[in-house]
């Protein structure tokens, strides 16, 4: 435990891909400032620390902990509790910690189905003995243990209290630096910190506000998947029938995806004040679907036409809740509901 008077910084990954760490390292020359300002107390991606080091720290020893990744296993939860105890400020860093992100898409299915796909029923898997990891395996040398794989993926704030949230998959480097700078000023110069519970490093309004594409009245007659059309480079993607979540997604990224022709995936989560991103997306796109004027009074014909248009939206729940499943109102699927797809 070094004591050079510098504030202590930690970054940990739970159920995540590692992209958040890379995005922190991607703040270019500012990474030198991070090193100058902070003493790294725990950061498994870039430096050799052990969990027992963290266990040995006094409570609140770490000034700022950037926690990325969702809570998928008992190990993730254990580390979240440990780091909460040892940190003055705990930041949910990135979409997984904030709202479940891609790992939480498995809340649309069951744990059994997930394990089945990963270990058994997959063309690239060779597992003739059909071995699935067990929490305890009895071996001649003794019992081997693995963390429990939970049924439901949770966000960090569903397990421990969180002080700040930085959205994004991953958060954009310029936003990360803005936040790190603000925290450093708070710690070193006593500058006021944002109110606890804030979402920092992002805008309050939608991605569309940052998007330079030209917007006109939308009449969508069908939706296209990205490979089906070459979109016009200057016009709103949603208007061209490409699923763009920008309309229901918090800005702050600079509308990077739409600007290069890929509809917004929704990774910054819902805009300020909205609880359920998917519900807002349903509201928004249903408002701009156009099934024409003919047959408007024939109730059944009308329903058929709308259904035909809706057939062009593949996997609505997975699209509208791609990043926000764990934080959505419903959180997960009902495994044995009658409407079950799988």
């Amino acid at each position, binding site marked *: 435990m070094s004591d050079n008077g510098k504030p202590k910084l930690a970054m940990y990954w739970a159920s995540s891909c590692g992209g958040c760490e890379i995005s922190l390292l991607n703040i270019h020359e500012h990474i030198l400032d991070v090193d100058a300002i902070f003493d790294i107390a725990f950061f498994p991606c870039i430096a050799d620390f052990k969990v027992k080091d963290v266990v040995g720290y006094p409570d609140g020893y770490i000034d700022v902990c950037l926690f990325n990744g969702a809570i998928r296993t008992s190990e993730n939860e254990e580390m979240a509790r440990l780091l909460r105890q040892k940190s003055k400020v705990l930041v949910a860093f990135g979409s997984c910690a904030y709202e479940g992100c891609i790992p939480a898409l498995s809340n649309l299915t069951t744990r059994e189905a997930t394990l089945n796909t990963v270990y058994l029923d997959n063309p690239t898997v060779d597992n003739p003995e059909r071995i699935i990891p067990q929490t305890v395996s009895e071996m001649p040398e003794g019992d081997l243990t693995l963390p429990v794989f939970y049924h*439901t993926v949770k966000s960090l704030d569903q397990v421990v209290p969180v002080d700040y949230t930085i959205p994004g998959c991953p958060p954009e480097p310029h936003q990360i630096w803005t936040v790190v700078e603000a925290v450093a000023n708070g710690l070193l110069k006593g500058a006021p910190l944002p109110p606890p519970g804030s979402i920092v490093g992002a805008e309050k309004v939608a991605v569309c506000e940052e998007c330079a594409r030209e917007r006109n009245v939308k009449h969508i007659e069908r939706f296209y998947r990205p490979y089906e059309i070459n979109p016009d480079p200057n016009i709103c993607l949603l208007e061209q029938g490409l699923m763009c979540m920008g309309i229901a997604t918090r800005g702050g990224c600079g509308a990077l995806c739409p600007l290069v022709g890929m509809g917004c995936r929704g990774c910054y989560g819902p805009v300020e004040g909205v609880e359920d991103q*998917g519900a807002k997306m349903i509201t928004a796109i249903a408002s701009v679907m156009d099934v024409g004027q003919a047959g408007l009074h024939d109730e059944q014909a009308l329903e058929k036409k709308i259904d035909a248009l809706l057939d062009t939206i593949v996997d609505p729940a997975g699209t509208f809740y791609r990043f926000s499943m764990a934080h959505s109102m419903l959180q997960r699927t009902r495994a044995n509901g009658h409407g079950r797809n799988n």
Partner: protein
Amino acid sequence: MSENQFEPLIIGFTCNWCSYRAADLAGLSREKYPPNVRLMRLMCSGRLDPAFVLKALQGGADAVIITGCHPGECHYLEQNYKALRRYLLLRRTLKQFGIEPERVQLIWASAAEGVRFAAEVNKIVERVRALGPLNWRAVVAANGDHPVHDLAALHAEEVTA
């Protein structure tokens, strides 16, 4: 009402101009429909944010009924078309969450259709009764497994109006 029969809790969103008046007319004409439906009046079915439906289901409702003016008769010209599109997309999405489409139903009813309104509500209540309780919080707490319902406890929770 038998002691052990499951009484579904259904939230109904009605529009001010047609379907709420249909419900009113049903009452005035002494048309009977079960008290399982709690009606909430919106100005228009087009005002219905799908989040209202999700909130109702998450908060303990077993089903949601959305009602509006017949196509072509909306007080705000075409907002009921918007409601229909949202409803159809929402139902597809809910199916992926394991929620049966029968638990979210749309009814068109004009201000003169009190009898139809009562009949449709009757049908829906029976359908939801057959499906059983939704109890979404317990579903999430049980990681998606359908909880074993204790009907007596369910009735004990019921708040009488």
